[in-house]
């Protein structure tokens, strides 16, 4: 009797329960938040760390991996305006559809979007984590980032390529790979921001020596900037805003190695600044930027082209490498006449308590971002390297909020001055990756994020280094073939002529300003 009663009840209850479950399932159509989930009061663990950022309205989707246990994953991304995006996955890799992402960011520019992460295990209840909130900035980032991709480098190299990444998607274009230039070392790529059809880079060729590969609308050449007065190759190119002059550092670099701590270190035995004038195919310099007793390096033009900023340190023997600390200087320059003014020290190494390198001025001319490290000029090899901001109006300096306990270095401004991309080793201490940060009008940097990749696990598997990031508002597609052509026809490159410039006072310099320090034959 009891058994019969039990069977009757069971036949009732079991279908009723199943129907209830089906109803819940129907209600949860796989879109938006799961209908029945429990909330936790913590943010989800995700990689890369894309939590609570300020992001450009035109950035590619921030794909990520959920580092929470689960067999089913759901991410719901939504804003105040526009339709939300739901990503369901049985794997923790979350790949956000590009078009939907773009539409969402466009609709919510100047507002915020939320990223809600849900996980569950084997059909159990969904767990919802605290939403991640991204602020979508009004100002877009420049559309393209050009960087050099290479293995972790010490003294030699294998494959090197200059890549251009479309920041609004995941497209990457190879501008030049060294396999097409006989595996020579290619570096110091630079382009004129105002004239994107002008690009220069240095190739250190075993066959033809160091050459500046120059691609302009007027032709492609491999220029030898070595003159009798200075046979050293030109590095760290900086295009004048008028696009007709390239400032460069001509230096002899040596690498040495430590037994404890960061292995690599770099020392400049000789370093002077010079200018290459495209129209007249002339190399020139001035005594103030090529002093025999100083090491001048890292030239950078002010946006109006009236000042050349650079770093300068006393020339000491290599045994005293820890004492070599660079000051920040600038010198007025008249692009019409080519006249130089008096150099001015903006910030001394002593005042800052460290060496100053990589000055870069924001496009509005207000801020100057630079690296500070304990000594020397190769900040990427200095774990203590941090980024600082100098307000050129108030001359106030502050350590930026985007720094980490590992090397933060080489940086580039977006053309609207609101975004910076910089190199950082914060992820693992060995590999350099590009990080993006928003800098507001007061010079305050917001939480940086690593350059997004289509494969969210990309950085977990890649052993490549991304260095010398340079933002560009325009694509540089045309340069790939042109630079290669320039190299191919570089066996007998045009030799730049040398012309010493006038002293600030107007008198001609009787001696060529290039020099070799005692004990270091050129």
């Amino acid at each position, binding site marked *: 009797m009891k058994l019969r009663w039990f069977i009757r009840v069971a036949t009732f209850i079991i279908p009723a329960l199943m129907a209830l479950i089906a109803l819940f399932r129907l209600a949860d159509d796989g879109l938006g938040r799961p209908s029945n989930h429990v909330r936790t009061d913590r943010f989800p663990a995700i990689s890369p760390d894309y939590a609570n950022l300020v992001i450009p309205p035109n950035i590619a989707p921030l794909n990520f991996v959920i580092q929470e246990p689960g067999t089913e994953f759901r991410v719901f991304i939504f804003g105040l305006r526009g339709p939300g995006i739901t990503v369901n996955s049985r794997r923790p890799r979350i790949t956000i559809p590009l078009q939907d992402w773009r539409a969402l960011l466009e609709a919510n520019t100047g507002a915020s979007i939320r990223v809600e992460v849900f996980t569950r295990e084997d059909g159990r209840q969904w767990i919802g984590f605290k939403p991640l909130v991204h602020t979508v900035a009004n100002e877009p980032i420049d559309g393209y980032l050009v960087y050099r991709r*290479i*293995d*972790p*480098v*010490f*003294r*030699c*190299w*294998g*494959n090197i390529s200059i890549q251009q990444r479309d920041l609004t998607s995941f497209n990457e274009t190879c501008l030049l*790979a060294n*396999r*097409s230039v*006989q*595996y020579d070392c290619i570096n110091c790529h630079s382009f004129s921001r105002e004239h994107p059809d002008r690009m220069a880079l240095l190739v250190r060729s075993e066959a033809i020596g160091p050459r500046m590969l120059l691609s302009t609308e007027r032709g492609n050449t491999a220029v030898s900037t070595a003159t009798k007065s200075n046979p050293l190759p030109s590095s760290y190119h900086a295009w004048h805003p008028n696009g007709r002059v390239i400032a460069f550092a001509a230096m002899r670099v*040596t*690498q*040495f*190695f*430590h*037994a*404890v*701590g960061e*292995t*690599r*270190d770099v020392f400049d035995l000789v370093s002077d600044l010079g200018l290459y004038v495209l129209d007249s195919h002339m190399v020139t310099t001035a005594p103030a930027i090529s002093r025999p007793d100083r090491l001048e390096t890292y030239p950078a033009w002010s946006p109006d082209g009236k000042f050349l900023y650079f770093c300068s340190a006393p020339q000491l023997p*290599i045994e005293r*490498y820890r004492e070599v600390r660079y000051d920040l200087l600038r010198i007025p320059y008249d692009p019409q006449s080519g006249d130089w003014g008096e150099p001015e020290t903006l910030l001394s190494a002593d005042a800052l308590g460290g060496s100053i390198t990589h000055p870069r001025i924001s496009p509005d001319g207000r801020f100057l971002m630079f690296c500070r490290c304990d000594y020397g000029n190769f900040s990427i090899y200095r774990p203590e390297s941090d980024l600082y901001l100098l307000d050129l109006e108030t001359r106030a300096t502050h350590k930026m909020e985007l720094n980490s306990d590992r090397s933060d270095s080489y940086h580039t401004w977006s053309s609207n001055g609101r975004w910076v991309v910089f190199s950082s080793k914060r*992820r*693992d*201490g*060995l*590999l350099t990756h590009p990080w993006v940060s928003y800098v507001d009008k007061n010079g305050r940097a917001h939480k940086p994020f690593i350059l997004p990749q289509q*494969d969210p*696990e990309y*950085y*977990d*598997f*890649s*052993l490549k280094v991304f260095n010398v990031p340079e933002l560009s508002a325009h694509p540089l597609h045309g340069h790939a073939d042109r630079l*290669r052509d320039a190299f191919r026809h570089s066996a007998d490159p045009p030799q730049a002529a040398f012309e010493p410039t006038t002293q600030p006072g107007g008198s001609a310099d009787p001696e060529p300003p290039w020099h070799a320090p005692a004990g270091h034959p050129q």
Partner: protein
Amino acid sequence: MSAASNATGGGSLRRLIRQAVVLGLLYLHVFWVVDPRLLLHSQSPAFFAGWTEFTESLGAWPGGLIEYAAAGLAQTFAFPWLGAAVLTVGIGLAWVLTERLLAAAGASRFMRDWAFVPLACLLVLLNRYTLSLGAILSLVVALLPALMYARLPFRQSARVLTAVGMCIVVYVLAGPVSILLACLCGMMEILSAFPKPDTSRIDWPESPPLSETGPATAPTWPPPGVISPAWSIAAGMSILLLGAAIPYLAGTHVYRIGVHDTWTRQTALEHDRPPLIASIALYASLPLGLILASGLPAGLIHRMKARLFPNAGRRRSDRPSIARKKSPHGSAQPRGSKETSPTPAPAFLARFRAFLASALPLLAGAAVVWITVEPDRAAVLRLDYHVRNRQWDAALAAAEPLRWSRAMLDPDVEQRLATLGFASRFPAEAQTPAPLLPSLNVAIHNVNFALAQQGRLLDCMFEYPQRMGASVVRLLPDDEGAYVAHSYNFDILLELGHVNEAERVVCESFANVGPRPWLLKRLTRVNVLTGRPQAAHVCLNRLARVPGWRAWAETIRAELNKDPALSGRPDLQRIRSRMYRQDHVGHLEGMHPDEQMLRYLLVANPHNRLAFDYLTAHYLLTLRDDKVAENMRYLADFGYTHVPRHAEESILLLAKLTRQMPDLRGFTIRPETIRRFEAFTRDLDLLGDPGGRDNLRIRDALMARYGDTYWFYALFGHTFFGRNAPPPPADQGRDQ
């Protein structure tokens, strides 16, 4: 079943048996002589499983697909029996396809044995460990469409288009070997323009009767209904030109690679510089085979002979021909001959000749392959394999041939093994399975490292080849001609405790030869030791995608998640205890001199026995007897209970030179060493001044008895034989 089909079946069976014998011998040769593990060790192709890697490999290089597939298949070389099977299948396919191609081009049975030429070339290259599986597979991929092309019944214009299309596909899949395909197709077209000469009067080596070998394959080339000769020649030339243009255009404009890669990537010539005769012959033999198969050269010779010696020609024409007799089953005769033998030779003779004709090419090929085996190279490679895998006993067993060899005396051997095989194309070889062929210097370093790991360096190092002027710790890239030499320094530097220097070495090797699994493993260790577990994770993630390394990578990854320092691992803890405590800036070129570095390491850890042994070995190699004697005061600190043999020898020499025995702090020189030294000095006095003009005579006389001593090294700058060396030559007594 008819008699004909019986005969055909018998011929097929015989052919199958012959093929099976050849493949069996091939397998045994690869398994026993070559040893696929050594191939994998020397080439270590980077293979990472995954869709991204697969798609990237497709577009990165011409022949990317075959390169990726070959790298994957090469992982089977870790199991010699399986690796030998894979290589046998690859090489066997190339052989069989060549044979079929020649048959399709109308080659006689004798001429089909020409297929042994490329087979022998492949094995000769394999003996040198320079042949990659990718080159074998790409050859197969080129031969397959060539065979298809030979059977195409199309019109000429369609054939040209087909050939060009196939060349493009082969270029994308297999790389510049498409030039070979174009060459074969073009040759077939051109040769079809010439009528087949009547070669029935030529003295071909006798082939087995058709009844025994089965019916001759009817030549499928030229196809029926062929067109005018001029058209054929034009078509052939077009294919040749277009076939050469495709790699050039694609290489420079699509893949944007250098000239060398454009023409040689994924071929046997890629890593073979200067190219061996074998690698050139490999590719030249195939079109040459087609020319020979066409009968044109034979016909030409026949005509010339007939013109020069008309009477001889007539007499020869009168001679009966056994091979050309008409088949009783009415099979088609080769070369269209209608002659029959009026007096056929006895059957056993015919069979014997048939056997000879069949076996001779095989025997000739086998002889060539056997002659080109390089046991000294294999020994050096095997030693390297065991040292890299930290199998010290096996390493020293592998070094045994070196111990007794006169390799260092043989300029040929020394020249062949002088530099690393990788040296020639730095850095263009980066990230390709370029073979790393260790040099004699590598072998010396490997032996020393194995001895040091067993605590026998100072007792036995002169039993093996040593060379004066060589660094005891590292191979200098400048000596070896390639930065890859660095990778050999890594294990020693890390074990000594110079982790930063080891990091530099491994990163530079990484930049040069790409993410090879053994480098990733080492990079993992360095990153753990330098406190960068996240970077170690990246290496492990990569390594986990290599099939043979997945288990190891996942084990370490799990351990790393629990303990980022891996402090439970004794090998890492041992290295940690030896690491520098205080910074020292290296030499500008990045290297501390050995002595300075070893002394710094001993300051960092006064119980670093490896550093002590290497420092003393350094003093021995640089003839610093005074420093060796000085070091004896520390012997007890490093657990020594007696003075090591070579140190004893050094001290006795010092005592003789200075006439004063140094203070050994309680240690003594063993009587047998003293007796041996007395005998040595006595013999030396008898032989005269070793610095004189008759140095070689004295060296050879002393070699057998004292070649394993420090004294011999100090006199002549190198060592040769061990204590149990073979007896001295008969005239040695006279010398003494």
